[in-house]
């Protein structure tokens, strides 16, 4: 049970970062940011480049990043570590282990296999070894089930696929959702408004694989306009990206609509009209900024939802993304693969959340502070 207590302690420590004084936050935040950047770049660009970039980035963020963002970094990086720990614990608690399916599982054979692959019996030991290996050697470790390959080798080809699918679908969500929502908000209580919101309601109600399979049947099997499944050309991207985008687009549409309605009731809109501004200026120059705020706040969970949905969509449309590695790894108890994909996913989501924070601060000048 001590592992659980470590977890709880970690959570408490995380919560405690709220009380960290400003200067310390700035220093530690920049430090962690540089560190993470270094570790990540090491994979792609090698040690020396990574080291230099890490230092430079650390100094730059120390000087220029808003305090709010650095506070988030201070929270998020240890949180990522804690997540890795929690995932490790969960895996170890699951029945079975990577070696249970091997032919001869006498204790000696298992012990030998464990030593060979570096998979100790305790979760904490594994965690320690894993983090050390990641920071010092810069590798996600060998896959336990796929002989002779490291995790990064396995997921490297799948990574750009998932990122491409995810980003494209997020982009689609935002454009579709904003477009529909803003128009609905401007033309409140008209037929257009009701119709848009009905569409949004349906989009939010149906699971993406239902919409996806319907699209598959209609566009691929009946009309032959798009390929049924697979990956490789632009036409392959369309249906998976749209299926993934629709639920988020629906939510964004509703947020944009209510945001627009709220903003239009603000006093400064009245002032803008009292100045004689044409309605187009009022909407674009004044109302839009305020409308964007709830949408931007939603982008963090939207990214998470996209990631969640991507598993199902990748399976449905046979897209060779990271999702399949995660599921396979989980079923086969390939700890390294599971952790590797989990880290990449968590990391992406966290990065995205940070970007959203920055965007938020940029959009609303009241949130910016030059920091002590």
């Amino acid at each position, binding site marked *: 049970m001590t592992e659980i207590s470590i977890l709880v302690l970690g959570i408490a420590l995380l919560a405690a970062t709220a009380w960290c004084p400003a200067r310390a936050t700035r220093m530690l935040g920049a430090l962690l940011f540089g560190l993470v950047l270094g570790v990540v770049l090491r994979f792609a660009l090698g040690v020396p480049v990574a080291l230099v970039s890490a230092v430079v980035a650390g100094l730059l963020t120390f000087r220029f990043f808003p305090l709010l963002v650095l506070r988030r970094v201070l929270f998020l990086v240890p949180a990522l570590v804690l997540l890795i720990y929690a995932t490790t614990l969960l895996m170890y608690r699951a029945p079975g282990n990577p070696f249970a399916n091997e032919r001869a599982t006498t204790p000696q054979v298992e012990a030998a296999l464990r030593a060979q692959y570096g998979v100790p019996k305790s979760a904490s030991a594994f965690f320690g070894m894993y983090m050390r290996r990641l920071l010092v050697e810069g590798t996600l470790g060998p896959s336990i089930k796929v002989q002779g390959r490291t995790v990064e080798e396995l997921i490297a080809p799948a990574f750009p696929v998932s990122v491409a699918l995810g980003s494209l679908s997020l982009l689609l969500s935002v454009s579709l959702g904003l477009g529909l929502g803003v128009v609905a908000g401007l033309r409140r209580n008209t037929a257009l408004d009701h119709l848009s919101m009905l569409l949004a309601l349906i989009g939010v109600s149906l699971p993406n694989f239902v919409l996806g399979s319907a699209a598959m049947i209609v566009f691929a099997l009946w009309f032959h306009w798009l390929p049924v499944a697979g990956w490789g050309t632009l036409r392959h991207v369309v249906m998976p990206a749209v299926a993934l985008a629709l639920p988020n687009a629906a939510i964004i549409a509703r947020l944009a609509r209510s945001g627009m309605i709220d903003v239009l009731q603000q*006093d400064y809109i009245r*002032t803008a009209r009292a100045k004689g501004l044409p309605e187009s200026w009022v909407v674009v120059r004044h109302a839009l*900024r305020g409308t964007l705020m709830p949408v931007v706040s939603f982008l963090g969970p939207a990214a998470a939802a996209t990631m969640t949905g991507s598993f199902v969509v990748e399976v449905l449309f046979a897209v060779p993304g990271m999702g399949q590695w995660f599921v396979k790894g989980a079923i086969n108890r390939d700890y390294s693969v599971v952790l590797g994909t989990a880290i990449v996913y968590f990391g992406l989501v966290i990065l995205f959340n940070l970007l959203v924070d920055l965007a938020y601060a940029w959009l*609303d000048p009241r949130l910016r502070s030059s920091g002590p």
Partner: protein
Amino acid sequence: MNEELLRVRDLSVTFATRERSVRAVDHVSFDVRPGEVVGLVGESGCGKSVTSLSILGLHEQPAARVTGSIRLGERELVGASRAELREVRGNRVSMIFQDPLTSLNPYLRVEEQLAEVLELHKNLRGPAARARMLEILSQVGIPGEERLRAYPHQLSGGMRQRICIAMALLCGPELLIADEPTTMLDVTIQAQILELLRALRLERKMSILFITHDLGVVSEICDRVIVMYAGRVVEQARTRELLQTPLHPYTEALLQSTPRVDVPRGGSLHPIGGLPPRLSADRLEECAFAPRCPRAREGCRNGEPALSSAGGERLRRCIVPLAEMTAGRS
């Protein structure tokens, strides 16, 4: 010059809600002359703000029905097209509001908000626009360039209101409508803003329609006062006359209910009893103030009194004999 700048005749504004119609403004008429400061006074809900918003047509369209006439010079504003109204707004007639913080766009810098007025109405951009902005800002008592780059939340309340005033003055309007501009400010800042408005009105020969519930403010800045109650005009007079000799029981009661510094302590306050009436679209069968009026009598319930002359330009809507009103003065 007796030619009016703004001529309001029989202005009525009705709001239709799901349950019933509410007539917020009921056949209101008044004038504003060039260079004059006219005060529009009354309790909350008496229709003074609604009246002022009607001039520039700032009501939300589907909800409000406006009838009557509002003439600015030769131009009729009621029923004017959106394009015509836009040309007047911010240009010939400007408006400032009660809460300077929420009246300014929090996401934009001051200079951006000022610049768009100049760009729109005077086709002024770049350095020429900047020069004009700085000129106006110094006129309202904010010297220096740094303020231009600031965001509204970085400025104090008084400064924000000055910015709003500056924004309203950029195009040299003939009429400034000020809807309770000092209500949300501290007393000292209030005095500064009033002083500023007085100075500006003299320099520019600009008229001001000053909406407030505060008779103290009225005495400071208004030449003439119009008192409203339940959507109707109940009295109209020059400021000094009104404050010294109110000719309508409501005005009298308002004056009495204002706590005074020069009266010995220990006296009691004199609030006006009862609540303001619910406004409806139906014609009233009695004087709107009768239920709360300390001078109410038989005839008050027989129908709404008409607006009658009380000598000179004074008007009142009451059947209490003039002699009785003036006799009650100590």
